[in-house]
């Protein structure tokens, strides 16, 4: 397999027989605990029972009606700490592989041509604008369209998906899979404006001129940096640019032409990935698949404190990444041409607890050393883009630039303006963005039907939810 093929190739899902066998492990719980554990309201208790009773179409419907991104969530969701964590079969031996069954059912729908969603009959309702075609925007758009609203999605890149297309490596979710997952959106009649970034002061507010409501779901795309005033170093990437550069599928992609640059920087080189979250694991694994000589994951805390999922960490190590724990990167060393040649590190040890409840890394004096590396990828978290703020000057944001929106409805401080996903939460799970899209859609429908006139948020969300280390999705 070529490096590129390795980057594109997803792990195979279940076939019918394997799925039936796995579903047979389900205890078919009364009042199934798994069904209460999904942020997006997925009901595995129902869809697995349906699979067991050979009601495959019904199982597919259960997933699809609930989640327009059923396939993508099936492959990306860290189910081991959501639905699968609650699985009663754990008491027997191990949880049922719920996410993989969900993926199977969605793939089975594609294979058999079974479609669930239909454009609702009846007169079209009000126009709603959705800004951003990532998980939150797409789920909001789908839900509103299903309710009969005329939805227009404004998306800066040329294709939909947001983080699903540009923020995860293709070996976890490739374009072919994503495109199939999104196909039913077209059936719903959602209108997409691609390569249509909003620009100018108050562009979001101006959408209200010809839309009755707006949902902001533009994500958080500004990479946090180790050193805010980092000078340009060749071979140094942020996870955002590195991962996006690898999504080279279409010539039109945002980062067209960057693939070869990233590949060249990595191939045969010693690479360092800085960070311990899912994105860091994605970067490390991508670098290895691209042909890096060695990949070091640099993390200032201990293994158990890494925010990445256990299976991601295992995958990275099995694929050859070296984990350098309790090491704090402090600076980069470049040669005279500006090429990276090393990373200055200081060893740390764990001290007392920090506000997150984890033991704090404390630098060990005079423990500095240098790791030779020709490539480094920073994966230490994202924040909202600085330029985003001016698109909606009347909407209140917190210090970190996250939009203040209430958890239950996604209402912002602006009348008719709702928001969800990473622009409200900071970097978080796809499935939570899906949830935000759905709840905001319901709230928007309520608002437009004047069931709930009161619009100003009543409860402020907590403090800035990102710590500079979180890199979940």
């Amino acid at each position, binding site marked *: 397999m070529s490096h590129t093929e390795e980057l594109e190739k997803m792990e195979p899902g279940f076939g019918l027989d394997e799925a039936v066998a796995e579903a047979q492990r389900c205890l078919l719980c009364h009042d199934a*605990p798994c069904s209460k554990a999904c942020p997006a309201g997925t009901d595995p208790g129902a869809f697995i029972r349906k699979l*067991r009773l050979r009601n495959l179409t019904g199982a597919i419907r259960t997933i699809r009606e609930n989640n327009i991104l059923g396939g993508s969530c099936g492959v990306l969701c860290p189910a081991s700490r959501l639905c699968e964590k609650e699985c*009663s*079969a*754990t008491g027997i031996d191990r949880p049922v592989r719920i996410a993989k069954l969900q993926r199977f059912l969605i793939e089975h729908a594609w294979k058999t041509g079974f479609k669930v969603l239909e454009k609702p009959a009846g007169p079209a309702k009000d126009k709603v604008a959705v800004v951003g075609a990532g998980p939150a925007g797409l789920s909001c758009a789908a839900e509103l369209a299903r309710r009969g609203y005329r939805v227009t999605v404004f998306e800066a890149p040329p294709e939909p998906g947001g983080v699903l297309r540009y923020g995860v490596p293709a070996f976890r979710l490739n374009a072919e899979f994503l495109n199939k997952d999104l196909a039913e959106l077209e059936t719903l009649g959602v209108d997409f404006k691609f390569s249509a970034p909003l620009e100018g002061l108050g562009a979001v507010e101006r959408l209200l001129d010809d839309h009755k409501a707006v949902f902001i779901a533009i994500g958080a795309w500004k990479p946090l940096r180790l050193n805010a005033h980092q000078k340009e170093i060749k071979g140094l990437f942020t996870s955002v640019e590195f991962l996006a550069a690898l999504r080279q599928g279409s010539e039109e992609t945002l980062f067209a032409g960057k693939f070869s640059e990233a590949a060249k920087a990595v191939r045969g080189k010693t690479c360092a990935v800085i960070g311990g979250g899912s994105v860091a694991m994605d970067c490390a694994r991508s670098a290895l698949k691209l042909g890096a000589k060695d990949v070091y994951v640099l993390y200032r805390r201990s293994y158990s404190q890494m925010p990445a999922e256990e299976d991601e960490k295992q995958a990275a190590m099995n694929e050859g990444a070296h984990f350098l724990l309790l090491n704090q990167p402090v600076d980069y060393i470049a040669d005279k041409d500006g090429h990276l040649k090393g990373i200055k590190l200081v060893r740390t040890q764990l001290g007392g607890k920090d506000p997150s409840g984890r033991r704090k890394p404390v630098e060990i004096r005079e423990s500095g050393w240098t790791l030779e590396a020709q490539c480094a990828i920073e994966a230490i978290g994202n924040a909202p883009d600085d330029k985003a703020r001016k698109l909606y000057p009347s909407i209140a944001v917190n210090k970190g630039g996250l939009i203040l929106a209430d958890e239950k409805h996604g209402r912002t401080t602006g009348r008719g303006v709702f928001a969800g996903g990473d622009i409200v939460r900071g970097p978080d799970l796809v499935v939570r963005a899906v949830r935000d899209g759905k709840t905001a859609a319901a709230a928007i429908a309520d608002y437009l039907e004047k069931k709930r006139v009161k619009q100003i948020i009543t409860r402020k969300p907590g403090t800035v939810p990102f710590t500079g280390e979180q890199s979940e999705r």
Partner: protein
Amino acid sequence: MTKKPDLSVTFCGKKFVNPFMLSSSPVSNSAKMIERAFEAGWGGVAYKTVVTDRVPIIHPSPRMHPYNYGAQRLAGLQNVEQTTDRGLQPNLKDIAYLKKKWPDRVVMASIMGFANQEWADLAKACTDAGADMLELNFSCPHMTVEGSGCKVGQADDLVEKFTATVRNVTKLPLVAKMTPNLADMNEPAMAAKRGGADAISAINTVKGMSEIGLDDFVPKPNVFGKGAISGYSGPAIKPIGLRFIAEMAANKKLNLPLSGMGGVETWVDALEYILAGATTVQVTTGIIHYGYRMVGDMIEGLSDYMVQKNVKHVSELVGKAIPYLHETGEFDVKRQGISQYDMDRCVGCGQCYLVCRDAGGEALEWDSKKRRPKLNDDKCLSCMICSFVCPVSGLITYKEMPADWKRKETVTLG
């Protein structure tokens, strides 16, 4: 295990090294295959039914269809298999070869004629070839000609007549193979005895229709657009086979040795057939699923059981269950019990609660916070369905209640 017990049995005067036989089917189609089965340890073979060369046999294609239950493959097997499609002479040669090469294994030639003379000719030919005994196939469910296959087995006079015909031409032991596609097997079995049969083998396949194509509406196997009611075998039919064997074993008037078959896959299945009254046990569908090697596990499993139970000879086990077989009206209904729960091991799935609520005595309450069931003893019907769905083995067991215990009556509405 210190000593290997003796698994040998004597059936119709012939010694078998163990009670396990291939039944007459594709698994006993040729000497080459059967030899491999003998190498694996099978004690004997019912050679695939031979017929005269008068009517050439051409098999439908495809000829089998699996009936899967969830992820379990081959809970049953549907087939439209016919008698041997090889010529009579090659089969006779194979029988002779096997007898010469494997003198300690029993070769029972299965024959099927379409008229008196054919039965006589086939019996003579197989006797001359050296077969140890003959199995008279009165039970193939796929014969269309009147007076053949299971249509014989369903007509007592034909069973008696053809058995008598064969009896006249050979001294070999005769085993009449019965079809289960009737209400009472004792009647044709008695007819076979009157005709001179020395033993009964049962059951052939149960007539059935396991699946229908949902797109083409053709019952399976789909033979180019046509389906048929045909023979159904495998684990799904074991209860039916055990029933017929037990009913014949319990019939003192019949008093013939029995060869049992139908759904045998494990030593436990085989032992159950023996306990129900069979002296030898035959297998086909199990081999279609697992290959000849399965006999190794049957031998080992039965051996260890016999050592544990201090049983010296398989014959001590034959028919052991028959004294415990009663009419349902003979049960002592004064003795009653309930289910009991080992709650320390509960994993909280709540399936017991669901089935008790919807199909039992509505005797369970559900604590949705703790995710645990609670049994109201006096409503428990002791149907035990809760234990059938409980994923933790042995968590729910049966407990007899004291004589003065009373079950609450079912609530009447209106």
